[in-house]
């Protein structure tokens, strides 16, 4: 049975259609494995070979990978949620109720988005501390650490802007508290808050601004900086696996 399945898969991979989609060709040699990475637009940010030591769980705890995983889950759940959501007052709250009682699996969709968002904030923080305590921020990786700090701030803003969207008491007052902190900036505070909220208090304009930030601007910024972050890992010599002592 297993053998039969194997032949089917092989036949499929040899087919003209498959060959037209995947540039790397068939075969299980290291050349083909290298091509599978290098000839794929999504994978070509990786080098074709990596240090074995970098795969040990203790080196990274896979925290960067897991941060990416939460981001992917958030995109995958966020887009269907957008189909059921109007960023207007009070329709936004009615949409939450619809998700709860009308939409199939609406509650599940919102739950998964919510918990993944919390997990992402937690994982990104954990990733930062792990990188710090291993000393992986040292040259030549210092600029990638800075990109990481930018990604941390983007993550916090993504989570914060999403917090307002349900337009319930929890959302409204959390954002009110947060935006009041911002108005403490000397001289410019009130202006910054006005720019952020589109008014002096949290209102329908604020909801629309947070929606656009949450669904368009910040995700695009996140994707851009994630791309740079990954690219720099490779350019800076791969994942940090500790000092190589035997060669000095």
């Amino acid at each position, binding site marked *: 049975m297993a053998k039969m399945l194997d032949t089917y898969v092989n036949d499929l991979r040899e087919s003209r259609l498959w060959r037209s989609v995947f540039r790397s060709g068939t075969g299980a040699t290291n050349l083909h*494995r290298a091509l599978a*990475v290098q000839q794929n637009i999504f994978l070509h940010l*990786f*080098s*074709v*070979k*990596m*240090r*074995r*030591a970098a*795969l040990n769980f203790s080196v990274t705890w*896979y925290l960067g*990978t*897991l941060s990416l*995983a*939460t981001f*992917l*889950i958030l995109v995958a759940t966020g887009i269907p949620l957008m189909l059921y959501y109007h960023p207007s*007052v*009070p329709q936004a*709250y009615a949409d939450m109720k619809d998700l709860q009682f009308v939409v199939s699996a609406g509650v599940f969709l919102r*739950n*998964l988005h919510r*918990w*993944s968002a919390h997990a992402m904030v937690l994982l990104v*923080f954990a990733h930062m501390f792990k990188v*710090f*305590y291993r*000393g992986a*921020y*040292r040259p*030549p*990786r*210092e600029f990638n*650490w*800075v990109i990481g*700090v930018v990604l941390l*701030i983007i993550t916090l803003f993504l*989570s914060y802007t999403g*917090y307002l969207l349900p*337009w*319930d*008491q*929890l959302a*409204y*007052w*959390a954002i009110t*508290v*947060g935006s009041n*902190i*911002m108005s*403490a*900036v*000397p001289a410019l505070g009130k202006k910054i808050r006005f720019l952020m909220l589109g008014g002096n208090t*949290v209102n329908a304009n604020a909801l629309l601004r947070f929606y656009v930030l949450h669904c368009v601007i910040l995700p695009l910024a996140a994707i851009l900086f994630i791309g740079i972050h990954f690219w720099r890992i490779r350019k800076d010599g*791969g994942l940090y*696996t500790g000092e*190589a002592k035997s*060669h*000095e």
Partner: protein
Amino acid sequence: MSEPKKFEAGLDSDSRKSPVRVAFVTRRTSPHVKAQDDALVMTWPETLFRAAVAIEVLGIALVLLALLWDAPLEELADPMQTPNPAKAPWYFLGLQELLHYFPPVIAGVLIPTMVIVALIVIPYFNINVEAEGVWMRAKQRRLRIVGIVVGVLAALFVVFEVWAILIPTLAVAGFMFLAAASSADSPDRFRRWLVAKPLSFWIMSWFLIQASVLTIIGTFFRGAGWAWVWPWRA
């Protein structure tokens, strides 16, 4: 003594005419050079398979979480009705806790800005890059500086009555002084570990402990009017 040189150094950009390159490795060597013959594996399938497993495990955990616990949804937002206490999202509750102690300009603007700037500059200070134990050199002078800094901070926190910051600060300082009193060949493993820790380790750990303590207090120990409550008595 002086044998004629068997080679000639030259500059050439034509790889077909002179295919040999000589690389001069300077003091700041790249990790590629240092770790040249580490064992390598193919990214596909070794790395990507492991990454996929990690992503799937997390995905399953989050799906279970989403099936078992519902996301909170309260009443429709009402600007006329302020809940007491009104709390920010959990990752900002440390900040909100700070606002309880310090004026908004300090807690809401100065401290967060300082934290972000401090995070960004970490890799640009050689003292962090070399990561030498803080007490390895100029011990007396450094003891004096750390002593004065800790003393001034502690006095400040006493004046503002910020016990939630004072206690962790003193705890971290205590371990720092324990490290200073330990020797690099102490029989105790923990002490040897402490001695080797650089300044950046102490500051970051202080920040981590402090941020965690304040966030936990803000999340669980604050009730109406931001007064202290015990979560198990609520």
